[in-house]
């Protein structure tokens, strides 16, 4: 199951990400550079296009202006009768197809003393030349107050009018070229009138409107006031200025642009066009009228080719990256597949099934090596487990044999109580709870003759089989020598010498050995390094103060001291091994001699059986669940005295 952390995923992720980044950077740079190159090219193209349009318009305008100037100059130099004047104006219109209409408008009374206003107007109508008189044609506003008359009159120079709808005379949208002419009679230069030539705005803007730029680009024409004269926004033409649109759109940058245009500047900019498209625009003035011509290239269309190229490249790149990803996936998989199957196999292996076959080794790479090592490991493990199994089996066999040995050992100890039902002079009770393994504790009691009971308690150092065997040897020796020698010090000395000869294993045992004369209650005893027994007398309980004696086994020719005490009837001698005093709880606190003394003080007059069981219980309580580490062995002898005396 390849999860988030799987090698394949990580590998694919990193490689794909890196490749994508590199590719994206390359693509981005390519796009950016192409754009730059395109924009440089575009500026030239746009300028050339705009200039050619300007040139065509200018040619027309200049021609019209020249004609108008010519008429004005000839009116200043020659004398014309009305007939000749009308012929001149008519010819002006006829000979110049770009001129829509023409008039010579006179200052009041300048044409004749009898007529105040005079302005004969020839213009084109339905393919022929029509005639009207402007002083009559203009119903509401005399021609004197029209821009085309007033402005050149006030400025005293040729002027192109702001385009207007010539209501009443030409009745079309037009721009008028006006040239004032003067009368230089009697020394003063007096304005005589204004010669005009109209050009139809439609015929002028047709050229501009019909210019196709890409798909949705356009050429536009603005007047000196920023009025839209030719523009795809048909409703705005002759209604809106660049500035009113800027105000409507609350776009100060548009206003700034408009100001640049009407100042007669040229420029190439990227802006949001009036039709709301990000576009490049080249704008340049038409000098003779002060108008502005603009060519607008929508950025989207310009960059279409670059975009398409980029898209193609991006598609190729995407496919490439996909292929690369697939390749990475397959390589990574081929690397990780054996790894994964190995992982799956080792997973099974880990659960303890060593019989599973590991995936076959096909390559000599790390995975192959790893598989090989795993194979080796598997074999070794199998081997080891086989050994372990065998060992365990052997161990278990030994364990069971040890168990048997323990049982045998236990059975060696006298277990039958009361041990001597026919001897009322004393009671004796003993118990041994072996620890887990075969222990080294033992006790024994036997009569060595009619009246002398030999009893002993011993603790062999160490555990397990050697201790058990040693104990057997020691027990057998002690019993046989006890019966032979009959004195505790001699018994211990003799047995010590036997045990110490060729004792390579340095085993040893502690032994407390005593002999009770049942007739007198006298106890002769000797100690070989064993814990001091307790003497329970009628009034007090005390530990015997023993002479020190060396343990049995390590060294030969050890001397042991014989001591004696007299048991009064009712007295009890309580012996034990260190399994009692050194019993520990989980906090490693020893049971200790003091506690043992106190425990016995609570039960001084109990039957021996109960006393021993009570102490055993106390130890268990003290251990509080902690495992028993040593054999717990106790033997107690209560002297009752001679019964015959009481009878007798």
């Amino acid at each position, binding site marked *: 199951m390849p999860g988030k952390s799987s090698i394949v995923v990580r590998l694919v992720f990193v490689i794909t990400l890196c490749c994508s980044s590199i590719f994206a950077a390359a693509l981005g740079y390519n796009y950016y550079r192409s754009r730059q190159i395109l924009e440089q090219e575009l500026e030239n193209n746009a300028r050339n296009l705009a200039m050619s349009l300007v040139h065509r318009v200018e040619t027309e305008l200049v021609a019209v202006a020249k004609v108008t100037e010519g008429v004005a100059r000839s009116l200043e130099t020659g004398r014309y009768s009305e007939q000749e004047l009308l012929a001149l104006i008519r010819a002006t219109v006829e000979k110049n197809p770009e001129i829509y209409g023409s008039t010579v408008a006179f200052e009041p009374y300048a044409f004749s003393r009898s007529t105040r206003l005079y302005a004969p107007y020839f213009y084109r109508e339905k393919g022929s030349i029509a005639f009207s008189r402007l002083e009559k044609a203009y119903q509401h506003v005399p021609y004197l*107050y029209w821009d085309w008359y*007033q402005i050149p009159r006030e400025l005293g120079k040729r*002027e192109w009018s702001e385009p207007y709808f010539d209501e009443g005379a030409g009745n079309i949208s037009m721009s008028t070229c006006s040239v004032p002419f003067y009368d230089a009679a009697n020394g003063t230069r007096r304005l005589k009138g204004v010669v005009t030539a109209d050009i139809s705005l439609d015929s002028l803007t047709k050229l501009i409107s019909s210019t196709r730029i890409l798909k949705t680009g356009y050429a536009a024409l603005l007047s000196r006031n920023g009025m839209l004269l030719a523009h795809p926004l048909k409703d705005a033409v002759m209604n809106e200025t660049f500035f009113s649109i800027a105000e409507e759109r609350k776009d100060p940058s548009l*206003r700034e642009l408009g100001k640049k245009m009407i100042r007669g500047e040229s420029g190439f900019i990227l802006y949001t066009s009036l039709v709301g498209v990000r576009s490049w625009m080249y704008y340049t003035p038409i000098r003779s009228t002060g108008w502005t011509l603009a060519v607008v290239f929508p950025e989207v269309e310009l960059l279409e080719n670059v975009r398409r190229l980029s898209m193609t490249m991006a598609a190729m790149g995407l496919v490439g990256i996909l292929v690369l990803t697939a390749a990475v996936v397959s390589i990574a998989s081929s690397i990780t597949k054996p790894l994964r199957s190995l992982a799956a196999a080792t997973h099974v292996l880990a659960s303890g099934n060593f019989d599973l076959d590991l995936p076959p080794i096909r390559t000599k790479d790390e995975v192959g090596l790893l598989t090989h090592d795993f194979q080796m490991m598997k074999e070794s493990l199998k081997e080891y487990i086989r050994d372990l199994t065998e060992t365990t089996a052997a161990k278990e066999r030994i364990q069971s044999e040890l168990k048997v040995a323990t049982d045998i050992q236990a059975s060696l100890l006298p277990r039958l109580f009361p041990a001597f039902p026919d001897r009322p002079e004393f009671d004796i009770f003993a118990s041994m709870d072996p620890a887990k393994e075969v222990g080294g504790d033992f006790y024994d009691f036997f009569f060595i003759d009619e009246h002398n009971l030999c009893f002993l308690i011993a603790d062999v150092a160490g555990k397990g089989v050697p201790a058990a065997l040693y104990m057997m040897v020691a027990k057998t020796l002690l019993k046989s020598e006890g019966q032979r020698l009959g004195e505790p010090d001699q018994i211990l000395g003799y047995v010590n010498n036997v045990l110490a000869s060729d004792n390579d294993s340095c085993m040893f045992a502690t032994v407390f050995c005593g002999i009770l004369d049942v007739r007198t209650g006298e106890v002769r005893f000797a100690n070989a390094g064993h814990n001091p027994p307790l003497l329970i007398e009628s009034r007090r309980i005390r530990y015997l103060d023993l002479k020190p004696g060396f343990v049995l086994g390590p060294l030969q020719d050890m001397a042991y001291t014989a001591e004696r005490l007299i048991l009064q009837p009712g007295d009890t001698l309580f012996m034990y091994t260190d399994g009692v005093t050194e019993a520990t709880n989980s906090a490693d606190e020893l049971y200790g001699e003091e506690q043992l003394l106190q425990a016995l003080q609570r039960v001084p007059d109990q039957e021996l059986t109960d006393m021993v069981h009570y102490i055993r219980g106390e130890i268990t309580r003290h251990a509080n669940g902690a495992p028993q580490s040593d054999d717990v062995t106790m033997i107690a002898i209560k002297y009752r005295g001679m019964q015959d005396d009481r009878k007798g």
Partner: protein
Amino acid sequence: MTILPHSQRNHTGWPWLRQISALLLFVLCSAPWFPAGAAEAVLKKASLMPLWSPQAQFAGYYVALDKGIYARHGIDLKILKAGPGYSPAQTLQEGKADFAVLWLTTALQRRSAGVKLVNLAQIIQRSSMMLIAKKSSGIKTVKDMSGRKVGMWGGELSIPPRALLDRYGVKVREVPQSHTINLFLRGGIDLTSAMWYNEYHVMLNAGLDPDELQLFPLHELGMQYPEDGIYTLEKTLHNDPALARAFVAASLEGWRYAFAHPDETLDIVIKYMREAQVPANRVHQKWMLERMQDLIMYDVPQGLPGQLKQQDYEGVGRALRATGLIRSYPDYATFSGRSNAR
């Protein structure tokens, strides 16, 4: 829709003949037609001549007409064509219009010339006219205008600037100016007459920035001349005072509606502009409507527009008499048509 025909070219006939034919045509075209809901009363025919062709300056009247407010007040109103070359004062005087929008200065001048017209309502409460120079001309004060070329509109519209120049004792070279600002833009004149709500904004929309212009608002130069008011002849008021009252009420209601619904109002105004075939520029009309609100609601008592304040009236009368533009002016009651109500 009725639009008077444009002049026929090559027609050298008599003007009165044309006007009669126009009137005939007008009567034929405007056969009474009532909306279904207004059939309970016969509407009284009436006509209004504004100062100029349709624009937001007259939004209140066009809105009242378009929204049927006049009809609700029992009037079948016709708004007559106006614009360059039309004189509403003249038309009113000749009885060709029942009501006209005139400036207070115009009305006083006509009254002084013997025309018995009365002010029914004063719509614009203060002067919005201004003289404008380019800062580059160096004209900073009224005194600087001395000897400069100043564009003046024809007819009564030149009264306020003349009064101003008289007051400051400044002699200028007057140049008649048409309704375009091109003469000024091209430098043919140094100063131009302009309305705050119209020509000033046209200049801004021709690429001039406010900081390039030196404004001389008459209002700030002590010329408290209320402008547009609704006028009728005394005899018209006499014949049917109810009609006059209804007309004023409907017009003011139209104005209130216009200020409350500016977008709808602009749609209506632009519709009428297109019908009259005049260039329509929404932004410009929006500016104009906003300025009209400034001017109509300027210093009105209890928020009620349309009142001619006596002190304003007396002030204008005195000022015009002082400059010699009028000989005399009637008392306030007579001028506002209240004398015969008493």
